[in-house]
């Protein structure tokens, strides 16, 4: 008797989305500003930047948005590569839905929660509004829908801004997706994603990037070590804790039974695409095509990735005994997450060793540590995004202005805890109401059959003869 409840849930999702859309539509009608882009004209003579410079800036941010978009494919590949073949359809489905949900929720309300302009509900802490407005000032009252003029920004049009920020938003929920893979029920997870992307992410985001209280106190987070990665990592931690480990991951005697990912090529594709996308993630966060600024950011970003990957690989070789590809890949991501809070200031040596390599080493031991704690994180999301996100945020002070250390620590802690609590409450409620974990039988047979009645690789003979796991096939 599962169907009726899924129906109900789906209908209510529909209803919520529909209602919010209608309200936006109505508001737009009321204001009589439903104009299309084609109608905008701008008197360039009043602009601070020349039309050419505006076009270049805007072009770069659009391209950066596309690069961030491709990160979603990267996440999909890393997560499916590092989990079992029997859960592949499920993971791909989640990672296909999340960016779509993220962008839609960001259009519905996320953007105006995150960039409220002056229209805070609780000053510096919380705002709300519906729709893709005109640069944060479109939320009900006095509508200003200039859209594309440089008055909105010297760097890009309002649409470019939305695209870039919307692409960012969904990455947060994707991070969680990896940590709960292999056992979470699909529908509750989608509901969690809607709330996480649509509410939590923009709220913590508004504290810094929306000009909220953290921003006012000088907190620095260039492209989101805290606002995206630590926040996502905290959600991942909450999810992994509440769900419990996959069957067979931990023996009764406390031993760890690794559950190897089913396709190393997919994991490798994923990490390279994430690195590729990170050029847009960090480089685009310069918010203009400023040659010096962007190119410097790209160099430190690249070098930190190298430092993280090499360090983590060496760790696995020297400490673990063999060079571990999955660790090298995680190390690259760790270095990238670490540099994200402040790619604009460190020297390349600091980026390589102080930020990249240290993040890589941190990530290596964090993976072992969470295994020790019996927290099962199939793709290492908590270690990569949570731990290195926090470390990266602190790096802004460590390798820059040490006086910032206090606010950096406070900012990352508050955001992490807020996200953790939010995720824990949402997962808790979902667990109590509809359940968040699939049945043991379904987990063993794989979520592809249980949730989707589909096989990811129907033409290949899978192997069940191995001693990989205690009790799981």
């Amino acid at each position: 008797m599962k169907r009726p409840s899924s129906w109900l849930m789906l209908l209510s999702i529909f209803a919520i989305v529909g209602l919010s859309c209608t309200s936006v539509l109505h508001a737009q009608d009321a204001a009589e500003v439903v104009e299309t882009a084609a109608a905008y004209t701008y008197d360039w003579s009043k602009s601070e930047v020349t039309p050419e410079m505006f076009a270049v800036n805007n072009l770069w941010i659009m391209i950066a948005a596309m690069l961030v978009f491709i990160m979603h494919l990267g996440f999909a590949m890393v997560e499916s590569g590092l989990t079992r073949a029997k859960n592949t359809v499920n993971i791909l489905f989640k990672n296909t839905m999340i960016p779509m949900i993220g962008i839609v929720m960001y259009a519905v309300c996320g953007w105006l929660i995150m960039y409220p302009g002056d229209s805070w509900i609780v000053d510096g802490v919380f705002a709300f509004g519906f729709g893709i407005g005109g640069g944060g000032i479109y939320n009900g009252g006095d509508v200003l829908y200039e859209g594309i003029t440089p008055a909105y920004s010297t760097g890009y049009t309002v649409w470019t801004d939305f695209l870039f920020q919307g692409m960012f938003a969904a990455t947060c929920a994707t991070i969680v997706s990896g940590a709960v893979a292999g056992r979470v029920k699909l529908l509750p997870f989608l509901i969690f994603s809607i709330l996480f992307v649509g509410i939590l992410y923009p709220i913590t985001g508004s504290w810094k990037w929306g000009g909220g209280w953290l921003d006012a106190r000088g907190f620095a987070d260039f492209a989101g070590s805290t606002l995206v990665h630590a926040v996502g990592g905290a959600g991942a931690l909450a999810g992994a804790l509440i769900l419990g480990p996959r069957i067979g991951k931990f023996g009764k005697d406390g031993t760890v039974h690794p559950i190897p990912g089913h396709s190393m090529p997919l994991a490798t594709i994923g990490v390279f695409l994430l690195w590729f996308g990170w050029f847009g993630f960090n480089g685009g966060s310069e918010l203009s095509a400023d040659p010096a600024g962007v190119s410097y950011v790209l160099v430190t970003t690249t070098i930190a990735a190298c430092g993280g990957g090499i360090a983590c690989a060496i760790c696995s070789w020297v400490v673990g005994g063999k060079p571990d590809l999955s660790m090298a890949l995680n190390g690259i991501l760790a270095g990238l997450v670490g540099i994200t809070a402040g790619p604009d200031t460190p020297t390349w040596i600091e980026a390589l060793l102080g930020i990249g390599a240290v993040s890589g080493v941190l990530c290596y031991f964090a993976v072992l540590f969470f295994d020790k704690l019996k927290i099962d994180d199939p793709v290492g999301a908590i270690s990569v995004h949570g731990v290195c996100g926090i470390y990266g945020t602190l790096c802004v002070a460590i390798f820059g202005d040490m006086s910032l250390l206090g606010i950096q620590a406070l900012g990352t802690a508050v955001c992490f805890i807020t996200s953790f609590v939010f995720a824990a409450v949402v997962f808790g409620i979902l667990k109590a109401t509809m359940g968040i974990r699939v049945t043991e039988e379904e987990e063993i047979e794989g979520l592809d059959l249980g949730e989707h009645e589909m096989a990811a690789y129907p033409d290949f003979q899978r192997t069940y003869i191995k001693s990989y796991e205690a009790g799981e096939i």
Partner: protein
Amino acid sequence: MHMIEAVVKPYAIDKIKAKLSELGIFGCTAIECKGFGKQKGHTERYRGARIDVGFVPKVLLKIAVKSEDMEKAIDAITTSARTGSVGDGKLFVYSLTKVVRVRTGEEDNDAL
């Protein structure tokens, strides 16, 4: 000498192997197979249509034993693989004419 062929659920392998080791039976050959019996296969879907996938993944274990060990071995396998639900599997036993260890050329009971 007898060959025991046991068609069992995949995750019973580890338990069976452990039990047999206790009896001093170490050799064993495992084959991926698909079974069809009282346990029904599942349904799959693809682009709006249903597919009936009749077969269930199983493992076929082949264990050659000295005739005197046969009963013990059968017992060990049956008890370790039993969960009580359909699909637990079946055992088939037949007698062997000859066994040869390739490496040494030893034959029959010496080869087991």
